[in-house]
């Protein structure tokens, strides 16, 4: 097992770092007081990103009746959430689209799961919240919550039978079994990846606690709220079977979170139906 732990750390070190533009945009989009001009200043120097932003904005997904040629107009139109999707997509989509054999995920399934969680988290935000979580930050947290699976996949495949045996013989959550067998779980490793990418610590914490919200001992109400939203969104998307692998539904839902966020069956069904339609349209854009 020790050799594998070293592999995990090596795998993280070998991950391509995020481009400076991406890191800068995440911090800008995470701050509600950021102006459009500040965002434009960063994007316009990145030709690849500019092309992508215009392409997505003019795709059938948004169904605009006229073509948008100005970056300013496109950024305003897309808004923080969609912009974050494009920015992170450039760096992470290829990685998330890969099959994860150890986890039993076919090509595209981890992308489908991660993007669905990002969309669901945004839809679960209470519209009357006086201090709303910035949409770009929430979207990024959702998109990256399972990134640790990419790193752990090979180690999981190598220990498949042991994991399978423990799944049958115990009733523990899947991430606890990962820790027992591999030494790390995908949520632990996800936190390490985000820190390696120099993303805000609060995003790394969301990764770490998305299956164990009660273990977060920090005092930051924004982290607490982000963890709640990603925990609910992940639970919904797993229930719907979007990108579910060998871990299946072996995760606990923390009902205290439903209570404090007033989550009802009706809300779950409503958001679930909306998420599925959005994810199917997005899949079309990225396959164009």
């Amino acid at each position, binding site marked *: 097992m020790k050799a594998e732990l070293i592999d995990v750390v090596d795998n993280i070190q070998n991950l391509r770092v995020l481009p400076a533009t991406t890191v800068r945009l995440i911090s800008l989009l995470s701050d509600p007081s950021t102006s459009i001009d500040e965002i434009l200043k960063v994007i316009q120097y990145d030709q690849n990103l500019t092309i992508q932003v215009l392409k997505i904005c003019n795709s059938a997904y948004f169904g605009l009746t006229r073509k948008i040629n100005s970056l300013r107009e496109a950024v305003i139109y897309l808004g923080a959430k969609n912009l974050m999707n494009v920015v992170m997509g450039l760096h992470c989509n290829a990685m998330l689209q890969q099959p994860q054999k150890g986890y039993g995920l076919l090509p595209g399934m981890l992308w489908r799961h991660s993007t669905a969680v990002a969309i669901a988290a945004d839809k679960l935000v209470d519209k009357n919240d006086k201090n709303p979580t910035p949409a770009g930050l929430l979207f990024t947290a959702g998109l990256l919550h399972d990134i640790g699976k990419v790193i752990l996949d090979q180690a999981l495949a190598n220990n498949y039978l042991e994991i399978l045996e423990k799944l049958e013989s115990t009733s523990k959550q899947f991430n606890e079994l990962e820790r027992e067998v591999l030494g790390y779980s995908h949520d632990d490793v996800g936190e390490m990846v985000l820190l390696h990418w120099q993303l805000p610590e609060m995003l790394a914490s969301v990764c770490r606690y998305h299956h164990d919200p009660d273990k977060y001992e920090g005092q930051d109400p924004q982290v607490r709220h982000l963890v709640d939203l990603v925990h609910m969104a992940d639970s919904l998307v797993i229930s719907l079977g979007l990108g579910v692998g060998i871990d299946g539904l072996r995760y606990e839902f923390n009902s205290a979170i439903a209570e404090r966020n007033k989550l009802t069956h009706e809300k779950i069904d*409503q958001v*679930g*139906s909306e998420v599925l339609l959005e994810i199917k349209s997005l899949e079309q854009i990225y396959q164009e």
Partner: protein
Amino acid sequence: METLALKTIVVDIADMAVSKDPGNLLITYSLGSCIGLTIWDPVAGVGGLLHYMLPESTISPDKAQHNPCMFADLGIPLLFKKAYMLGADKKRIVVKVAGAAQLMDAKGIFNIGKRNHLALRKILWRNNVIIEKEDIGGFEGRTMKLEISTGKVTIKTKAGEYEL
């Protein structure tokens, strides 16, 4: 081995397929709390597979119009109707069911699987249709397959594959 020669039709979540081509294999992946419902008429050689996601379309009538297969109350009648159009007869139809898994959730906030299964049973009971076999509940994702030529339904989980 025989399945290698079959043409596979993948049914996505909130979708269905109906066929009377003996060379077809209908398959749906990633059944979580959703339900996979297969119907098959041995005489007409007609089979269908529906993968629905939620019990009631009343939560979103506008979406339901364009996506009836998302919901039990619209998708199930539509599956039967399409099979009848290909020559299936209700008296002969064999019904099999898989899915309705659930998170570890003591208070049942995410009991979508249970609600989906209840909706199915109500609809079938009202229409005097009996479920031949089912594999539901638990914490596992499932893949479900239907061979049109034989009506053979197979369930695959992480641990292996077996005939339902």
